[in-house]
């Protein structure tokens, strides 16, 4: 610690001087072979990444149950996926989950971030309260809590009974089970909210001052200044949330005891992949499912990136 402190104080003025001299090259061009030593763990780790990546593509074209050697079966896994009704069902479930919960949670995140951003006392406390659920949302304990809150005799139905409403058995009715998971997702809007809060602070004050002088209404300021200025962050959150939602697993597993029920209404794509791979040991089929998911996520991300041209605003 003393070494670094010494180096910092002694060389700060010298550093500034050297930066000011034009044409003076730094010594960073010297090749430092010891870099490879620092990278040894990462190199080994890459073997654990690159080789499985290739292997999973190969496995996708095989029939493999871990016990017998893999058998090459060509496109059969993929044609089976095309005709597998549970794959279709799980894709529908996952897409609905994504389409409803991602925009809703991002809108909630932005709305609350806007409210929190205005010269407010106790911001750290509010921010912590809003952020906490997103830290806990993927933990088994909270999913179990959610399951009890929405069970037939849960507190939601107890509260509804006060108003004389007979609530459904949320988690065991195929029509409502998915909406419980969507609500759980929306409840975790704190993570994108924190990013929005940071972004809102980067918007230069002078824009609002100028707009106010010109008599722009608050809505107009939001639409013409805030939204364009933070659109790259909205985009970033959108891409992350989409990818995250497509890969959800724990919620549906815990909520449905690993079945995706009732009537496959919470059968997330990843849960189905797990069922195929790890309870039935259809390793080849599960690899093919993984590659289909990879392609879907890549396509969604590509669509997001193409669409950003029309609504994301970059200053330079």
């Amino acid at each position: 610690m003393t070494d670094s402190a010494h180096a910092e104080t002694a060389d700060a003025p010298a550093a500034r001087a050297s930066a000011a001299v034009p044409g003076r090259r730094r010594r960073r061009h010297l090749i430092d072979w010891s870099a490879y030593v620092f990278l040894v763990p990462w190199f080994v780790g890459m073997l654990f990444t690159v080789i499985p990546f290739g292997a999973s593509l190969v496995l996708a074209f095989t029939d493999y149950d871990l016990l017998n050697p893999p058998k090459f079966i060509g496109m059969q896994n993929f044609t089976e996926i095309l005709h597998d009704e549970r794959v279709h069902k799980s894709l529908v479930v996952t897409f609905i989950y994504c389409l409803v919960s991602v925009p809703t949670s991002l809108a909630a995140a932005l709305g609350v971030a806007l409210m929190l951003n205005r010269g407010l006392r106790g911001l750290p406390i509010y921010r912590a309260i809003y952020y906490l659920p997103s830290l806990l949302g993927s933990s088994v304990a909270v999913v179990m809590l959610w399951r009890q809150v929405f069970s037939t005799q849960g507190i939601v139905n107890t509260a509804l009974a006060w108003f004389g409403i007979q609530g459904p058995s949320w988690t065991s009715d195929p029509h409502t089970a998915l909406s419980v998971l969507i609500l759980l997702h929306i409840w975790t809007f704190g993570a994108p909210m924190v990013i929005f809060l940071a972004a809102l602070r980067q918007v230069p004050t002078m824009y609002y001052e100028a707009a106010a002088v010109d008599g722009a209404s608050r809505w107009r300021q939001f639409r013409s200044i805030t939204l364009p200025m933070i659109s790259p962050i909205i985009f970033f959150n959108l891409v992350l949330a989409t990818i995250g939602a497509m890969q959800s697993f724990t919620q549906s597993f815990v909520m449905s005891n690993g079945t995706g029920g009732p009537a496959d209404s919470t059968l997330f794509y990843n849960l189905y992949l797990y069922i195929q791979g790890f309870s039935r040991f259809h390793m080849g089929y599960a690899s093919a499912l993984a590659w289909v998911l990879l392609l879907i996520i890549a396509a969604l991300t590509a669509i997001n990136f193409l669409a950003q041209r029309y609504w994301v605003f970059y200053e330079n």
Partner: protein
Amino acid sequence: MAVSDTLVPKRTAAERRTSGFSYVEGGGTSPRTRFLRYVVITGIALFMMYPLLWMVSSTFKPDNKIFTQLGLWPQEWKFSNFSEGWNSLEHPFSLYLINSTILAVFDVVGTVVSSALAAFAFARLNFPGRKILFAMMLGTLMLPSHVLLIPQYIVFSKLGWLNTYLPLVVPHFLATNAFYIFLMVQFMRALPRELDDAARIDGCGTFRIFFRIIAPLCVPAFATTAIFTFMNSWNDFFSPLIYLTDSDLYTVPLALRQFMDSEGQSSWGPMFAMSIVSLLPIVGFFIAGQKYLMQGIATTGLK
């Protein structure tokens, strides 16, 4: 809305900046609007916290009262839920807590050390192939884990690592989560390069530069990584689910799930009590590391 809404407050921009809020929209709202805003955000906050608070209060209620009482203050106190929950699974709950703690400690140490080493090479050293390797590292950032899942499982099962902690720990020592490398690279790049030059002139080798100069300055980045890794490791349900079958080795999330499978309709209190116990470390780390965590999240979104 009144005219005052759109008026610029009389403070200067510099003053506002020091107060920490550069976003002046609505800076001059009337006390009534401001009061309403507090009511709204406090209302939403209470609504969001209610399920968690309800779970806390349920751990002190008798089972037959849990779902009939919406109020948070128990009318009848029951303190045995914790001791019942602690002992109602196959092993005492302390075993699962110890298992999860061991895993989390290894994961944190492994991730911080291996990511820091790789990040130092990428951020501050010049070597042939740096750009290509860096691009590869960024590429793995975007790879969904499920594509690697099955071959990795097969490899670990061939190595005889199933039902051990090795599949859960070893990858962390190999810097396999590119996100943390990237975070540290961004942090290390911001440090003045003259530090390295000065140290070299004074006769420091590359290793000493890393250990004595760069690493101590990177403590905030290490802390962010450590907190994130701890939380992910503590919350992880999927990997223990596929790699561990022996209940002696179960982690907290796997143990909690057993409450759902094995218990009848009558023991919600103990189940919620153990759920609370399982969430406490995360809440604790969150409160302790909030500053780093918020910075870490904010930089992730902005750089």
